[in-house]
């Protein structure tokens, strides 16, 4: 019997349907303390005073941590990929979004921890906030990030670029130029399980971290960096998560729980309320995308000019990565020989945005696919035919110079048309992903074909 291709039952299915699957919140450890966080009530402010002494003296309070307790407070999750760190684990001087954590308490009960949070003495000096990414580079915009209002570390550029072919030629040569603006929104990842973590100090000095992370080794690296510990002092236990969708790559609770468990010498547990999950955990990013397509009246897309601004919220997190992925896929499932793309990661005083299903590409798929229908309308062409004509084919090169080996734009589009009974002209129905030739290889595409690369191994 072959297993691959079979409708075998879920490996963990019996556990799920009998309520026996153990999620992090179901882990039971004796003498566990509860964690609560002090969070910024302002969108943007300087912290002028922070005194936890009264709170620390309250009954049932076992530990409080602030930025001073963290061996390395600022650690960038993508430092290994060249994205420097900018976000403190606990705010030190400034708070840059409503809900940003400043201190965390471990106490005998959830109520005692909350009472201690409320007893922490803290004062702020409010600063002007920025929310509209379109205005982030205006001369009068409030300065909200020490790097400036856009991420400045794409090599020597403050934006991610794609330059391919000759964009001026394409716009010159075009019969029609179609321009549009697309604004996909922020949404919640909304897993049914909120952020949750339990950390147990072990007799040998290690910490066992029961984590809802989507990435155990990644999160372990993040915790180890903040603690400045070798990896073998940590043991992450996880692998079973009540929904993630990208939001549980953030390592939102693990490090603070480790710090509190060490300080209190007791197991600690932090389960975010739904309200915290919705207001303080990161969202999918909002995006602003401006497209201009240079097209011929017979439906060739000669070139595309793109400006994208990605709303990162207050800190970079994974946004520089997400924008690069966006840039690499901004021509969609089509072959466009001349491209000019400029993408910016802009900071605002909202909760930092992060990965979510389709990261970086969901936004550009919306923009491109809606835009193509406008293009089709502008030149009076059927939108199915427009797509099939410009579809990726074997041997085409992508915006960043990759030769495609096994694209499926044509088969999925044709299958969809067939399934809903769209009658396409025979020449379109007969299309495949085979390398271009004849009418489908006009001069402007022929110049970029690299079929030899395909046969010679290429990329």
């Amino acid at each position, binding site marked *: 019997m072959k*297993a691959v*291709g*079979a*409708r075998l039952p*879920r*490996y*963990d299915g019996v556990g799920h349907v009998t309520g026996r699957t153990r999620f992090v919140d179901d882990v039971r450890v004796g003498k566990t303390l509860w964690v609560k966080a002090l969070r910024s009530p302002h969108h943007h402010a300087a912290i002028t005073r922070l005194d936890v002494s009264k709170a620390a003296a309250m009954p049932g309070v076992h530990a409080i941590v602030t930025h001073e307790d963290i061996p390395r407070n600022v650690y960038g999750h993508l430092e290994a*990929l060249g994205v420097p760190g900018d976000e403190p684990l606990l705010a030190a001087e400034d708070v840059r979004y409503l809900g940003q954590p400043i201190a965390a308490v471990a106490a005998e009960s959830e109520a005692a921890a909350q009472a201690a949070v409320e007893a922490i003495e803290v004062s702020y000096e409010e600063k002007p906030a920025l*929310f*509209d990414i*379109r*205005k*982030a*580079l205006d*001369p*009068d915009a409030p300065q909200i990030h020490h790097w400036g209002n856009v991420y400045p570390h*794409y090599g020597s550029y403050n934006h991610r670029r794609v*330059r391919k072919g000759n964009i001026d030629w394409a716009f010159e040569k075009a019969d029609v130029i179609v*321009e*549009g*603006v697309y*604004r*996909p*929104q922020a*949404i919640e990842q909304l897993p049914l399980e909120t952020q949750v973590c339990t950390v147990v100090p072990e007799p040998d000095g290690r910490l066992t971290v029961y984590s809802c992370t*989507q990435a*155990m*080794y*990644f999160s372990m690296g993040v915790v180890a960096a903040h603690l400045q510990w070798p990896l073998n002092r940590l043991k992450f236990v*996880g*692998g*079973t998560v009540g929904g993630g969708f990208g939001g549980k790559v953030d390592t939102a609770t693990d490090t603070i729980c480790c710090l509190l468990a060490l300080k209190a010498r007791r197991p600690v547990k932090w389960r975010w309320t739904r*309200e*915290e999950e*919705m*207001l303080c955990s990161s969202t999918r990013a*909002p995006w602003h995308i401006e497209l201009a397509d240079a097209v011929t009246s017979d439906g060739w897309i000669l070139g595309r000019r793109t400006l994208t601004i990605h709303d990162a919220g207050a800190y970079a997190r994974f946004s520089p990565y997400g924008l*690069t992925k966006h840039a690499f896929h901004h021509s*969609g*499932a089509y072959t466009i020989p001349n491209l000019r*793309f400029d993408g910016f990661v802009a900071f605002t005083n*909202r909760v930092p945005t992060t990965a979510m*299903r*389709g*990261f970086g*590409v969901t936004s550009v*798929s919306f923009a491109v*696919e809606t835009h193509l*229908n*406008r293009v089709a309308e*502008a030149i009076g062409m059927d939108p199915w035919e427009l797509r099939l004509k410009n579809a990726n084919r074997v041997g085409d090169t992508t*915006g*960043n*110079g990759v030769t495609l*080996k096994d694209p*499926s734009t044509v*088969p*999925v589009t044709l299958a969809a048309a067939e*399934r*809903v009974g769209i009658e396409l002209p025979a020449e379109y129905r007969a299309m495949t992903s085979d390398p271009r030739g004849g009418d489908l290889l006009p001069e402007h595409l022929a110049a970029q074909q690299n079929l030899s690369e395909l046969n010679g191994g290429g990329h």
Partner: protein
Amino acid sequence: MAKHRGRGFATIEYPTGMNQNGDPSQAWIKLKPDGRVDVFSGTVDIGQGSKTVHTQIVADTLGVPYDWVTMDNTNTDSSAVCTGTFASRGTFIGGNAVRLAAERVRERILDIASKELEIDPSDLEIADGEVLAKGSPQKKIGVADVAGAATYNYGELISGSSTALKPFADVDDATGQVEIEPHSAISYAACVADVEVDDETGEVTVLKMVQVYDVGRAINPLLVEGQIEGGAIMGLGLGLLENSYPYYPSVDHRGGEFGAYLGPAFADLPELDNVIIENPSADGPFGAKAIGEMANNAQPPAIANAIHDAVGVWVTEMPATPDRVLAALKAKAEPRRDGKRVIFDEQLSVRTVSSNGGEGYWGVEP
């Protein structure tokens, strides 16, 4: 005042694995003395089913029954590195890690079986938990006996480990060009949405979505369907319902209550029709490509295009809430034409909204 039907579609592509690569997954496998298989992988199952998929891959790579395979992804002491469950990398990269580890285990099984059967390993194959001589299947030995012999006669632990890793693809910051493929594979999909738009309330109802996915190889079709269906409803939420900032860019009226947030519910469920295409990838386990992340990308534009088809207006700020649809119906905006330029949405653009014509964004060097 009436309800109008419309149809829209979209075709999309999505990469498998982390953009620019460099994201390893490792796995190791050992046999118990009765031939049962322990797999250790760090891949987190967030519900997508990686434990199931990896078990299937290992079972077939080794040639043993599915229920011989135990999957331990519970902790970082027993498992090796998995970069994580994101970037649609679980089936492809995590799956390749367990496949490659299983291939090594398979070689060890064949080596020991070869000694027991006195047949060259290249003339042996494994099926249903037995090592058989190719062409003369009456000469055989159970994998259980091989594992027992390894443990008790040869003093050997049959095990294997491996890493699936594609090297980091550097990008030229001036041009965005790469030297090596910055992904593991690319998957494609198309979605056709049929909607009904009420021009009095602005409400949009998705009636049906037909979705076609090329996943290379559906290792477990039920899990693939689960991704298609779950993604469809998430895409519907993106297209029509959900918004963390209902008055974006303003932060006003951001809600902290589950009940106040318009996540898609049972009542929003349209008719769904799934089509799976298998155009195998060269490098994926059994030809698989990814599906997880792309599964909510095609619906929002398909829905926006369907709304246009129904009532003739473009809603390009997501989601297409009743307010926005009504505002668009009222405005009946036509694009501005300037020579060969056809200009939509000017009021939303950086040039319009910024105080200096968007100089900071538009003024970059060519």
